[in-house]
């Protein structure tokens, strides 16, 4: 990544400040190419800064190693159900939210809004999907949204 730094930070602590800035900018964000950036593990290198002579900011090319969660299309994952309603099932895989629409749920599982808690269940009630259940699903489509 390229980090822009205000001149007020130029000084003996510049490397430390750069590290802090990289952490705060990148950690917790969701990048379209790399997925969720959970944590910066290591700063590999901080290149020489290039001054922008119009603004006075310096631009530093930074190479870093990070722990990411990068879901891909058709990936199969285990997920936790967080809510259930007549349009489908909302699930979570760590920071990723996955919605399963009713069309993608097997036909034998029917929504029962009357039961407490509401759930999807099959005819003989041997299988029920409700909040906190663990289900295995396949990702059909992905789109990033602002966190």
């Amino acid at each position: 990544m390229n980090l822009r730094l205000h001149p007020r930070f130029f000084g003996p602590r510049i490397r430390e400040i750069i590290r802090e800035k990289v952490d705060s900018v990148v950690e917790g964000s969701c990048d379209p190419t790399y997925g969720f950036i959970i944590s910066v593990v290591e700063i590999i290198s901080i290149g020489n800064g290039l001054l922008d002579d119009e603004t006075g900011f310096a631009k530093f090319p930074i190479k870093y190693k990070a722990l990411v969660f990068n879901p891909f299309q058709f990936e199969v994952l285990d997920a936790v159900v967080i809510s259930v309603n007549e349009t489908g099932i909302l699930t979570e895989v760590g920071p990723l939210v996955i919605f399963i629409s009713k069309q993608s749920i097997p036909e034998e599982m029917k929504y029962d809004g009357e039961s407490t808690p509401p759930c999807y269940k099959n005819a003989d009630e041997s299988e029920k999907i409700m909040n906190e259940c663990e289900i295995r699903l396949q990702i059909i489509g992905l789109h990033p949204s602002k966190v």
Partner: protein
Amino acid sequence: MNFGEFVKHEPLMLNEVQSILNQIKTEQSNETQVTNPNKEEILNKTLRYVKRFSRFTDKETISGIKVEFQELDPIELTILANLFPEDVEEAKVLIPSLAEKYSDEEITDFIERLHKYDN
């Protein structure tokens, strides 16, 4: 199956992610600076998830698995270990690229060898 950009990076099993995150949390509690709330939320959610779904409980098991299954693509091995299919049919559905590269007998062999590591 297109693993996309991910191919350039090192895939991690759930248990490995758990150790890394635990270490990060310990370091965080030692620092006094305020961390951004987005990061906290994502970190905590991820940690809760890997704790819930981690199967293998120690580092030696993970290293053992990695050494034994060197013939497999690292991504395929990681998915195999994370999803832990019970039989060949399940494995072929979960990881279609395995079916393209290996015979049913070979896949059954992988599964049997992997199940020995389950404690």
